[in-house]
């Protein structure tokens, strides 16, 4: 066993320990500022992870992050990653946003994210949609999570404003959880604006 493999296993043990200790706090209903830039209105309280799996993307949930997740991508600049690139295996293209990207390319970034590790991703629909007072897009997708075979549904709203990406995605198991959480997620996305 190489030292590199030992390090990998040790980091996996650490991540499990870290995940168990992750702090969660409640976000009260009303107006909330996410990452200091995106203002949203909540129709009900959500749970927020203080530290989110190391990717720095604010993540909220109603029933736990393995069930439903609402993720906020706030003001990602040219070259910023929508998720960290795993160190192993090598050769994985980084999921980097570029300010010149066309909408289809941005949606492809999310497709790659949700396809990681062999999960499936099917784009159901992508349409023009105004988001953060900017012409943007809305996409719907379905996915099967590889780790537990759970069928998910998802929706994302996004726009590029002054070269920065603003987006929100919501995913949950397609039966019961997704329909239950979608209205609140939609109302949050509809209320989103960028703080000047």
């Amino acid at each position, binding site marked *: 066993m190489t030292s590199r493999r030992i390090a990998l296993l040790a980091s996996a043990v650490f991540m499990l320990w870290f995940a168990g200790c992750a702090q969660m706090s409640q976000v009260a209903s009303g107006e909330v500022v996410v990452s200091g830039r995106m203002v949203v209105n909540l129709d009900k309280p959500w749970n927020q992870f203080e530290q989110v799996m190391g990717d720095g993307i604010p993540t909220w949930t109603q029933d736990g992050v393995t069930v439903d997740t609402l993720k906020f991508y706030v003001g990602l600049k040219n070259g910023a990653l929508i998720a960290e690139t795993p160190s192993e*295996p090598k050769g994985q*293209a980084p999921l980097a946003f570029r300010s010149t990207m066309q909408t289809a390319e941005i949606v492809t970034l999310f497709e790659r994210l949700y396809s990681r590790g062999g999960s499936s991703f099917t784009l159901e629909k*992508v349409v*023009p949609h105004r988001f953060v007072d900017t012409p943007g897009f809305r996409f719907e997708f379905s996915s099967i999570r590889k780790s537990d*075979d759970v069928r998910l549904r998802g929706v994302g709203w996004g726009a590029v404003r002054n070269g920065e990406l603003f987006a929100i995605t919501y995913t949950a198991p397609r039966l019961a959880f997704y329909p239950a959480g979608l209205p609140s997620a939609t109302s949050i996305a509809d209320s989103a604006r960028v703080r000047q």
Partner: protein
Amino acid sequence: MRRRQWLQWGCAHCAMLGGLAQAQSEWTMPPRLPRPELSGEEGGLWAMMDREETRLRRSPFRVRNAELDKYLAGIACQLGADHCPDIRVYTMRAPYFNASMAPNGMLQVWSGMLLRLENEAQLAAIVAHEIGHYVQRHSLEQMRDAKARAAFATAMAAAGVVGLVGMLLAVGGAYAFSRDQERDADRIGVVLMRSNGYDTREAPKVWANLLDEVKANPDSDPALDSVLFATHPTSEERRDALQRQAAQAGGRTGAAEYRATLAPLRFGLLEDEIKRGRPAESKVLLDRLLASEPDSAELLYFRGEALRHRDAAGDKTLALADYDAAVRTGRPPAPTYRSLGSLYQSMNQPDAARDAWQQYLRAAPDAPDAALIQQAIGDIK
């Protein structure tokens, strides 16, 4: 190395090869394995695998294609001979190269592996290898070894940080142990291929092809970068050993049958390959597939996609050439036009982008992104 040492080394390996040849000629398929008593450790292992098989059978990742199932079952039956009634093959949707055999006869093949194989003989090499694991009851050996290691790891875990390292070493050693079993299964695989009339020279090609893909990444180390190579003999070793065993062989490859069976599924498998997000490896794979099917519109389209996503210097031009070549076949997949439009747009050629996108909408009016493309065309006008 001194001459004497070199001679000793050479003789040792000649003896080993001689032994190998003898082993090959003497190896005979053992009789069918009786179902073990549930109360024993092997019975417990089978029961666990039976539960896993129930899950697998219902899994949304199972590829359900009657023709493919029949084809794979036929090959497994032919190679497994008397063991045929005990082996069940499941194709799982996973864009990676892998196959595995459980002790109860449940054989999984992953869709990424099917995409990579070139003919029936290569498929037979994998299936025969897995049957080798089954008839030699390698899982039982592995379980006994893992139990011994787990006991050691538990003892080490009580010793704090030093114990943690010991525990990790013990767990890692469990993987190293399986390499001998892999070599054994390789040896049996070649025997079964030969006795069933397959060209055994196809077996080493499987590993050589896979190695080419992994090496497409800068700074790659196959032994570290691939789970498969990490827990198996290195593919160089495997390729070389199989080449020695397969030398002088002849037989059928079954390329046409294999391609025909896979054809209805291949577009989806290629989509999964691109979504895997490892475009350098995908390009190597597609170069290889295109070498035998240079006019395949779908392969040209997907190589264009790999190049567009890799986005290295000159890749846009190469992708454009592939998309154009796909269009020239007269039967390009509809998304070829969408990608052409995006590429032209990124190259600041709006008229060409508009024309390509209009073609896309004509070819796929109900595409999930039709409204978005319509808007993009409107923005150009």
